[in-house]
């Protein structure tokens, strides 16, 4: 469960979020809003990538200020551009890289990597250079590299914008099947249709918070003006 308590965030001389409060307990939560409205900042706050300048962010009761390390283990984060997330040269190495902080014995790492490769249909590519994968495969790898650490919550910041129809579907299929709680930031409103709850952000505030139907209607009205 994610709890935002009067959360504010500002870059030097640029307020981004102002006193946002919300309790996010649903399994599937969407976040939409205009460019620069503060969606990515909100997503980053949940993972502790940025810390609030005012208020508190709690994940399962843990404060991102005080308990950063535990929060990080609990919350997985996937970015828009898979190229940014892939660190190691080959697919298998990149998956293993995620397990480093766990300091597991080598054979356990290998086993986990093999399981994960199989789960996301990447077995054949285990020793391929990661940057030669297709866009969709890269994004799947980025997802897998986060899921291998078994986070309790997944935060995804526009994970499909650079993808084509097929890759987008492949990624969304994987996301739909996740047992975790999912927070998804996206400009692709169609994928939110069967979500439990959608937040609409505008100029650093939550301006709508509802089931997808009414929330997306509110966002569309906002974009008219």
């Amino acid at each position, binding site marked *: 469960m994610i709890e935002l308590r009067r959360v504010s965030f500002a870059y030097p001389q640029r307020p981004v979020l102002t006193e946002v409060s919300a309790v996010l307990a649903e399994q599937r939560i969407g976040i939409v809003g205009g460019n620069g409205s503060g969606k990515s900042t909100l997503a980053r706050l949940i993972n502790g*990538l940025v810390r609030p300048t005012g208020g508190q962010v709690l994940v399962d009761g843990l404060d991102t200020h005080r308990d950063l390390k535990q929060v990080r283990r609990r919350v997985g984060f996937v970015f828009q551009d898979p190229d940014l997330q892939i660190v190691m040269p080959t697919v298998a190495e990149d998956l293993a890289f995620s397990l480093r902080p766990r300091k597991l014995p080598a054979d356990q790492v290998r086993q986990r990597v093999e399981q994960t490769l199989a789960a996301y249909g990447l077995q054949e590519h285990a020793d391929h250079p990661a940057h030669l994968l297709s866009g969709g495969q890269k994004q799947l790898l980025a997802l897998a590299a986060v899921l291998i650490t078994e986070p309790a919550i997944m935060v995804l910041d526009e994970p499909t914008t650079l993808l084509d129809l097929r890759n987008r579907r492949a990624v969304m299929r994987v996301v739909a099947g996740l047992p975790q709680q999912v927070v998804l930031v996206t400009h692709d409103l169609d994928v939110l249709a069967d979500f439990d709850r959608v937040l609409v952000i505008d100029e650093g505030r939550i301006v709508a918070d509802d089931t997808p139907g009414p929330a997306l209607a509110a966002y569309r009205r906002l974009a008219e003006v």
Partner: protein
Amino acid sequence: MLSLYQPGTSPVHRCPAWVKLLAMLVLGTAAFFLTDLRVLGAGLAVVIGAYAVARIPIAAAWKLLRGVLVMLVIVVLAQGLLGDWPTAAQVGIRLLLVIGLANLITLTTTQTAIVDTVERIATPLRVFGVRPDRIGLLIALVFRFIPVIATEAARVREAHEARGVRPGLSYLAPLVIRTLRMADGLGEALEVRGVGEDDPPRRRGARVRG
């Protein structure tokens, strides 16, 4: 943006950039052949007078000098302790004179004026395939890239943190690769906008790289 220029209308400001650069060259060279402390001292006084004429705020002059001063003190101390003090004084005054003059030019000349002068001075380099008229564009691009690199560095660091991995050296290579890709993208945008149109035609089917 990244400039130390102090706007003004004094004679020093209005003096053409090439004259100032030439004066720098002549005086800078001369200073290295002068050993008489009185002559060097007089030269330094002239330079300080020029600061007054140009009405340079002391804070601005100090900001520029501060960086060099630490080095200067070390040099003079080392010379005094390892060698003799008269030479130390000579070295100190000479450096102060030359650096003071150079800083005065930096403070009273816009970057545009210097770039224009450099472009003109560099014209003979054309025979080596250098395009002096590109210098202004290059500088504009450097200033464009600085914040981009900073943002990308933050992005790559975040991507590491999000995976619970402390960002160490492993983050430099991804950062370089990403910025290289961005430079490629920007290069294409330049091409589309007519940069390179007037270059001599290149070999047909020349190598293509992404």
